[in-house]
């Protein structure tokens, strides 16, 4: 682990001077936060109707993402010294105004609105070297202005870490915020553009994205017997997966290439994993055990599936080689280990394990070894899901009373709450990067 952290740090500081690395604020074990300022945007157009909302709204969305990443300390806007006449391009403002307050990075930008279209210009400056590092122009619908902010932060993170960020993504999850029913929702990480996928007043569970980010697979009791449905977000079309010869689908996950689905099928009290094509036809049965086999997730190369089986007498995490059908046990410590997800980087598997009477999130090497506990057992944390870059984990926790969604770094650092719907928000699944 130490090696991984060091490697991340080296990549992280490389675009900047060694000086910046030295002055970075040390947080937690081996982490650093880079002091950055995000200036409210300037209105560059004639239309001033929505000016204040957009000016701070775009900046606020960027601040949210930068703080959620854990790699930045965003300087408080009330401390900014710059006067209103300063520009947003190199030579039209004074870097000293920003160096004085301790900023090493600076984001500036402007926007103009025409009808329902917005053009946003955003720049990242290196305050120490007095240089522009990124300059981008985006055009989109005014109501999607937050998405533009997310895209730019993904660029900023690319500049610092060599890998783009994951903020232009969405989370699918289950919530009972609308009452006693469990419905599927999708929203951006900051809670914006929340969309209710199901509204059938029953129980809907286990949402899973297709790898193109266009569809959500979920299981539902809406037709009484639980089965899988594939909902296409843009068209609203839906396909039902019905097991031939009876039984019920409890959940499923798309393979990384989007061509297959591994699904859990319960029949006669036994649950087993089945390989389906993307239309829901059974290709073949993957497990033959008389016990419980559930919660499958694919390896990033699509050759293996991590899942849960109780064949040892308690639920434990196993890895199945899809071609040979052979399984090996991965977890040995603890008597209740469930809901695994395989890092898109391939190296680690995250899962929920019971500690005493509580549940915590663990990661373990895909080759086995000692698991690492990431969350405290003073409350329950469950349902972990990797970000598409494998550097973050979304999960649900009842640490604030009801279950809410949280995000943390893969090290367990910087645990931050995403949702507060008033109900229980559970079962997050992170979309791929979106356009």
């Amino acid at each position, binding site marked *: 682990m130490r090696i991984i952290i060091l490697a991340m740090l080296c990549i992280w500081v490389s675009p900047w001077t060694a000086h910046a690395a030295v002055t970075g604020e040390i947080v937690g074990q081996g982490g650093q936060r880079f002091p950055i300022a995000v200036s409210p945007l300037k209105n560059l157009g004639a239309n001033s109707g929505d000016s204040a909302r957009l000016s701070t709204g775009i900046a606020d969305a960027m601040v949210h993402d930068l703080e959620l990443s854990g790699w930045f300390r965003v300087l408080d806007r009330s401390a900014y010294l710059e006067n209103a006449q300063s520009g947003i391009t190199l030579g039209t403002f004074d870097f000293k105004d920003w160096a004085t307050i301790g900023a090493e990075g600076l984001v500036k930008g402007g926007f103009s609105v025409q009808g329902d279209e917005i053009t946003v210009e955003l720049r990242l400056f290196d305050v120490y070297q007095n240089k522009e590092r990124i300059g981008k122009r985006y055009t989109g619908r005014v109501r999607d202005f937050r998405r533009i902010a997310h895209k730019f932060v993904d660029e900023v993170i690319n500049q610092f870490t060599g890998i783009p960020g994951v903020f232009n993504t969405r989370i699918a999850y289950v919530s009972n915020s609308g009452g006693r029913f469990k419905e599927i929702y999708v929203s951006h990480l900051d809670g914006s553009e929340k969309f209710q996928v199901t509204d059938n007043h029953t*129980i809907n569970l286990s949402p899973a994205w297709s790898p193109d980010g266009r569809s959500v697979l979920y299981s539902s009791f809406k037709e009484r017997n639980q089965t899988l449905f594939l909902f296409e977000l843009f068209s609203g079309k839906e396909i039902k997966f019905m097991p031939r010869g009876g039984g019920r689908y409890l959940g499923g996950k798309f393979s990384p290439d989007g061509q297959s689905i591994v699904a859990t099928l319960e029949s006669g009290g036994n649950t087993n994993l089945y390989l389906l094509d993307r239309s829901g036809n059974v290709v073949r049965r993957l497990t033959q055990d008389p016990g419980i086999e559930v919660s499958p997730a694919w390896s990033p190369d699509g050759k293996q599936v991590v899942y*849960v089986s109780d064949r040892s007498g308690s639920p434990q995490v196993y890895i199945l080689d899809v071609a040979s059908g052979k399984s090996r046990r991965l977890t040995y410590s603890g008597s209740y280990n469930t809901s695994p997800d395989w890092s898109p980087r391939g190296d680690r598997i995250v899962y929920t394990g019971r500690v005493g009477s509580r549940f915590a999130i663990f990661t373990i090497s895909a080759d086995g070894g000692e698991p690492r506990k990431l969350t405290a057992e003073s409350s329950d944390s469950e349902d972990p899901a990797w970000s598409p870059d494998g550097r973050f984990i979304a999960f649900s926790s009842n640490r604030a009373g009801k279950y809410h969604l949280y995000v943390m770094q893969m090290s367990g650092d910087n645990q931050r709450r995403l949702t507060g719907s008033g109900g229980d928000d559970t079962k997050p699944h992170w979309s791929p990067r979106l356009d």
Partner: protein
Amino acid sequence: MQFLYRISCYFALSLLLAACAPSATQKPDSKAGAGAGSAQAPGADGRAGEGSRGGAKESNTGASSLKGLQEGKPPITPASSPLKDVFFDYDRYDLSADARTVLRANADWLKSNPNARVEIEGHCDDRGTNEYNLALGAKRAQSAREYLATLGVAPARLSTISYGEEIPVCKEEGEGCWKQNRRARFVLLQDRPTS
């Protein structure tokens, strides 16, 4: 119209069942042993005695838990139900001695009421993950179904469904509530009334 039809058929069926099998319905209650007693305690909802007001309610097992959820009713088996819940240990689906006692009484009633068809619901407490609990609930329902079958109830009369941890009787944290949720529930199916 269909709803009214179903209600009236159900009512007729209930009367029939009550008339046919008074001794069978008494059986679990008259056996005031440890098994029947402990089986009843968690499901008791303070509505005991409701059934004694009219024979028509003798076979009232309550609606399916999903239907109850939709109608805003708790998924509680009425005290008057001739088919009692059976309970399980944490993360287990094998049948305890108490559970077998209850199932024997349920089997007796089912054998005395050969037209009754039952859906066995498997439920879990809310600890652990949803999908695992759905599978565990299916195991619990299946355990109950298989035992009833060995006692001579035709398996074709018994269907199963698992609600996992999704439709709990109670939501408090602690064993007092959890144990009430680790159960198999028996709901009379009313879609094919016979007469």
